[in-house]
């Protein structure tokens, strides 16, 4: 029981809010708002709702607003809604029917601003 991993088994249906999770694996159906360090949506998993997480691995279907550091969409993934990410990996076959937004961190936006300034300088 000391494992810091929660599992929503296949055949289970959760409705509500889930919080204070480190790592969660979802193989059932979940309609919830979720905040976690790591989220895995298994092939049989179906998640509807907002996710805020460092790492999200999607093998099932997702619909909602996702804010994530890294997203890995596996070949069996179906994603709808809106995803915000800092890094994204997509396997061949993953279905994304959603808004995809790259989250600028302060660091990256400064880098881009500098690059733009360097590009613009010679023209001036």
């Amino acid at each position, binding site marked *: 029981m000391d494992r810091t991993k*929660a599992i929503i088994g296949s055949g289970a249906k959760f409705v509500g809010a889930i919080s204070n999770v480190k790592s969660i694996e979802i193989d059932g159906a979940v309609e919830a708002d979720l905040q976690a360090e790591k989220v895995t949506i298994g092939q049989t998993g179906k998640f509807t709702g907002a996710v805020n997480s460092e790492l999200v691995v999607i093998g099932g279907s997702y619909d909602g607003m996702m804010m994530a550091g890294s997203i890995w969409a596996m070949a069996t993934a179906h994603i709808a809604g809106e995803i915000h990410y800092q890094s994204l990996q997509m396997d061949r076959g993953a279905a994304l029917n959603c808004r995809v937004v790259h989250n600028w961190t302060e660091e990256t936006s400064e880098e881009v601003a500098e690059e733009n300034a360097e590009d613009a300088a010679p023209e001036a």
Partner: protein
Amino acid sequence: MFDNNRKSNEEAPTASLIDKDMRITGSVVSAGDIILAGVLDGEINCRNLVVADNGRLNGTINSQNTEICGEVIGDIVGDKLQIRSTGRFEGAIKVEGIEVESGADVTAKFKKSRRNKRPAAAVIVEENAE
């Protein structure tokens, strides 16, 4: 339950583990087993439920077999209920078989469960809710 359940027919329902530190508000319906080590406010509907030592549940349980090692405040409907010595229970019990270990903290109202006429478990919950 699934829209995309091409595979789930062959797969046996697996157990769900609600980790300690985890907090859920809402309802959980499962064809399989649930181990609750975290905190749940709401309703659980499943086959086998284990409320672990650290687990806490506020709400209603509708489960064939229930084992309580943690804390439950609410009502239970089902077939079998076991309350372990570390368990704490407050509420109403409507089950066919009850086992309470010595040391358990139980404050409960027992309701009669008609063995032969007992309707489906889901129906009982609705009656209680009214």
